[in-house]
């Protein structure tokens, strides 16, 4: 009989045409992140569960390339229940956690050598590919939307990460739901930027739970660049906030 592992789904991120999923496994003291991966691909074309769901997976080890040591081959998953946003956040704070940029992945980050303010970790230096951190502030940029959204976050240490690609499927969904009826891309950008600068900023500033999970992209080619991405942002987006756009 195959052994199953219970994961608390913490991340559902957009990865190309599919989704990447991360869940928390309970340990004797705290939690650790594991990334269930389908048999034939790195991403799920369809994932029917939500963030905060407790899901039982059949997991097996796979030869993961550094720093994505959290990867596990997965199949046959089954919903066991779910937890609230506050409970999920408490679990995340007992998983991988950093107070500074350097501690996120156990290594220095580097500015893009090609222009722009995105930063990367060297795949040979990074010790993990996902980590949480408490944040002081966040702002979104829709300069290259659709489809790209970037975010800048300020850590409580005073350090900033200035151009993180937003891959959190929930936040991307809010922007798309808000603007999908608009044909002109420039107007979509303006609408999304205005909504996030006003309604979303107010929601985030007034929240006591400002927390982000920063992930590393898989390196492409021989560059070894693992770009930092915004995998999850608390407070989680609430579709009801869209009503405030009207």
């Amino acid at each position, binding site marked *: 009989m195959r052994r199953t592992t219970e994961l608390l789904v913490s991340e559902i991120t957009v990865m190309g045409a599919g989704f990447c999923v991360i869940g928390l496994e309970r340990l004797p003291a705290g939690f650790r992140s594991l990334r269930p991966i389908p048999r034939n691909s790195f991403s799920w074309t369809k994932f029917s569960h939500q963030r905060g769901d407790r899901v039982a997976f059949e997991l097996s080890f796979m030869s993961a390339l550094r720093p994505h040591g959290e990867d596990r081959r997965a199949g046959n998953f089954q919903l066991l229940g779910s937890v609230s946003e506050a409970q999920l956040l408490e679990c995340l704070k007992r998983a991988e956690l950093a107070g500074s940029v350097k501690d996120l992945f156990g290594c220095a980050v580097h*500015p893009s*050598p090609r*222009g*722009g303010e995105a930063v990367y970790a060297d795949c040979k230096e990074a010790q993990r590919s996902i980590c949480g951190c408490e944040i002081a502030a966040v702002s979104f940029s*829709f300069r290259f939307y659709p489809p790209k959204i970037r975010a800048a976050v300020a850590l409580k240490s005073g*350090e*900033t990460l200035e151009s993180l690609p937003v891959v959190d499927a929930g936040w991307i969904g809010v922007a798309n739901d808000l603007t999908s009826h608009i044909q002109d891309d*420039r107007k979509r950008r303006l609408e999304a930027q205005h909504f996030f600068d006003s309604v979303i900023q107010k929601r985030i500033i007034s929240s006591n739970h400002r927390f982000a999970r920063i992930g590393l992209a898989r390196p492409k080619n021989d560059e070894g660049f693992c770009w930092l991405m915004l995998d999850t942002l608390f407070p989680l987006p609430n579709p009801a906030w869209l009503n405030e756009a009207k």
Partner: protein
Amino acid sequence: MVEQCLQTVLPPEALLPGEDEDWIKTGLLDSMAHVDVLLCIETRLASPGLFSRMSDGPPTTTRAAAQIVRNFRQSLEVETEASPSPNESGPDGRCGIAGWGFALGSARVASGKIEEEFDLPKGTLKDRAGIDSVCRASASECEISLATAAAQQALEVAGVSAQDLDWIVTTTETLLGFPSLAASLHSTLLATSACRVLDIGGACVGLLNCFVTANALFSDRAVSCIAIASADVHSRLLSPGKVPGEFGGLFGDGASAFVLRRTNEKDDPPLYSVRASIGSCSGTFSSVLRVRPDANAAIVLDFDGQALARAAVERIERIVSDLERSSGVKREAVSAFALHQPNPRLVATLLRRAKLRADRVPLVAKNCGNLGSSTCGVALSTALDVHARKPRGERGPIFAASVGPGLLWTGIVLT
């Protein structure tokens, strides 16, 4: 130009795509590289946010991007005909550097003696940092006297009287009291009551911030001559017992000054002018160096030397690349690089990584130590001594680049 930007993100052996080949659908570019190409084009056009103003999404083919570039350039030509750019809006055209000078602390202290003072292992400064000696202010010298000496040199080179100055713009990271450096310099130079003063921050990028600010002040048609100066006496602030020798031992004392005035047709050779400037703050690296006074006037220092060195080298390398993009000037065509030099070892690393010719980088830190923002100033003065009097056809542009705590960064192109 679109293809040049594509080449910056593609592997060297990769072929450029056809004009109508979709960069994303063909897998040529991933999302990160796509944004990098778009940013490169915007930087080259000096038009941040260009693509966000388009009614369509960001271009994903060479033809579409090239069309946007063409349209933008055409619209720019129409605008330029209607109104000249700020730097050319004055009655006499652009402004340029007419005079320059620097002053160093008159005491030369060998690195071995500094190691003794700070109780450092022998060779820490000479072998690991590459510093042979530093310049230290004597008991009779201070930020104001050094800045005054540098400014008088610059005025003399420019053939300008202090009475002609409309502004004095200064920067310092060590003179913490008041009257400020700019006010004090106004007094020591006996500038007129019509000459205004401005103090600018930024620590090691302070001097380049002064250049950017002075250049902008010339958009006021009433302004015709500006003196800028930097001065720092680190030896009295970063002394043994207050900070570790691995940090305090790197610094020297000095000042630099420049006189900018409007150019005219009689200038032969033409004056070097600020053609482009870039800069910002990369808070990602803000924790690698933090210096502040505590309640007892002692110094609280957070200093991660290795991380700072890595961040500084990477950022200055990026500044050089970004200056190339924004100005269209290749580094091979540059006559001199006036660079901030935290220590000589970092300069050697930077030269290797950025493929800069050593004979085009005036070295300051090896014999003078890190002079704060005056490091760039002394390097720039040295470069101007060599190149400013050459005919235009025999000299190339000068790049200046610096980084400071924050991580602040600034770069300027002088042509």
